[in-house]
């Protein structure tokens, strides 16, 4: 039997993102109704989370499979909503499911998304033309390990704190800084190799 524990009446709210927008605002009552199968509440949760969850999944698994993995993430979320403890942060909990789902997918397919850097460097169209910086960035970014891409995206694009990133990624908070150091260092190396001027 599903048992929902209401710790206190409050709205689950996260910090604002880099654009100054509220990241997530999902009322406890909506979560409770969604856990009981209410489709309107489930849709509300989906529409509240989809942009950020999809982005996180996309950064991990790439464009081709992002929709399918995101679908599975939400099915998993709704199936396990009764397990959500209201003292936790809902968006963080949802993101954690997204990361777990995406990483499980990656382990199943066991393939890399990125192109070999050497091939890109030798490609005359990349070296001689004046590549669009965004395209150059995407190529360089794809060179990072999936987890590093995710952590850097959570920080720079979604404005999460180290504690939130640690909770989502399932790593100690003390290692978030070193992981970001590594991600930034590797991204810089990849960009420089493609001709980016610091």
């Amino acid at each position: 039997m599903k048992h929902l524990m209401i710790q206190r009446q409050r709205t689950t709210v996260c910090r604002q993102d880099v654009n100054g927008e509220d990241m997530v605002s999902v009322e406890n009552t909506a979560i409770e109704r969604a856990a009981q199968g209410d489709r309107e509440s489930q849709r509300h949760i989906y529409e509240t989370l989809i942009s950020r969850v999809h982005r996180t999944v996309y950064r991990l698994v790439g464009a081709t499979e992002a929709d399918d993995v995101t679908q599975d993430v939400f099915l998993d979320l709704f199936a396990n909503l009764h397990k959500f403890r209201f003292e936790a942060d809902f968006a963080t909990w949802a993101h954690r499911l997204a990361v777990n789902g995406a990483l499980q997918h990656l382990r199943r397919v066991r393939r890399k998304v990125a192109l070999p850097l050497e091939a890109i460097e030798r490609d005359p169209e990349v070296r001689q033309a004046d590549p669009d910086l965004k395209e150059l960035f995407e190529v360089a970014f794809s060179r990072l390990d999936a987890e590093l891409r995710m952590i850097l995206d959570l920080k720079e694009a979604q404005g999460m704190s180290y504690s939130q990133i640690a909770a989502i990624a399932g790593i100690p908070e003390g290692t978030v800084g070193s992981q970001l150091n590594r991600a930034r260092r590797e991204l810089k190396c990849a960009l420089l190799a493609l001709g980016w001027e610091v």
Partner: protein
Amino acid sequence: MDCLTAKNYLSGYYDDELTVEMATLVRAHIDECADCRQELAAFGRMGALVASAEVPVTSNRLWARILILLDDASRPNRAFTPVRTGIPFRVSAVVVAACLLLGLGIWRFGHWSGQGHNDHAEMAVNLGEMISGFASDPVAAIDRLSTHYQGVEVSLDAAESLLGYRPAIGNSLPTGYQLTSTRVLKMPCCTCSVSICTRQDGSTFVVFEHNEEQPSWFGDAPSISAKCGGRECSVVEMPGQLAVTWKSGMRQLTAIGVEGLEEVANLIAAVDSENSTG
């Protein structure tokens, strides 16, 4: 603080996650170190790139797909069970009570041979209408059938997740053919995939697939048995085209709108090759 130590804390400093004391030490070093100042500047530029990077939007149909699966999961005789654990999907025996192919076999343009179930009779009519309209507008014909049976356009991976098997035709079309789309249909008897395939000249045919052996596809419609590509096939003539059903391993396939037995043989060979390597 030396440079090596400062670099270890550079991200924490940049992200304002250090204690006041540590941030003071790092700042003091940065004031003296051009290299670390450059590194911080690079952090800022890269951060802007990450923040401004565009992420493809989700499919408009994503919520619809989720809704179908949620609705199905709440039914006692569920048709869809997305595979998430690697354990193969087992279709409920209740769901596979009759078969799409039996329904197709009764598609004598609306005639039902007496099974007596309203859903199956209606399905036979719908299939008959699809086939009769296929020659003039195949996409519209399949769209009507798909709409009626809650068809969802999915990727091959998603089809595998929904059905428990991957549509064989998706990965095995011969050269010169292209898989345009794959849909999963919730027919009254069972769940199946239908793949819309396009030839180089832009013309279309479709392939239904089941992972269960089916009785006669075409009921008492005039058909011939033929051997194509080493497989026993049942062939029915459509207006200017053929409908053909055959079995490949555990898979039952029915192609509608094929242009001749040579094309059928090519499809069979391609599917058999995929099944032998897959």
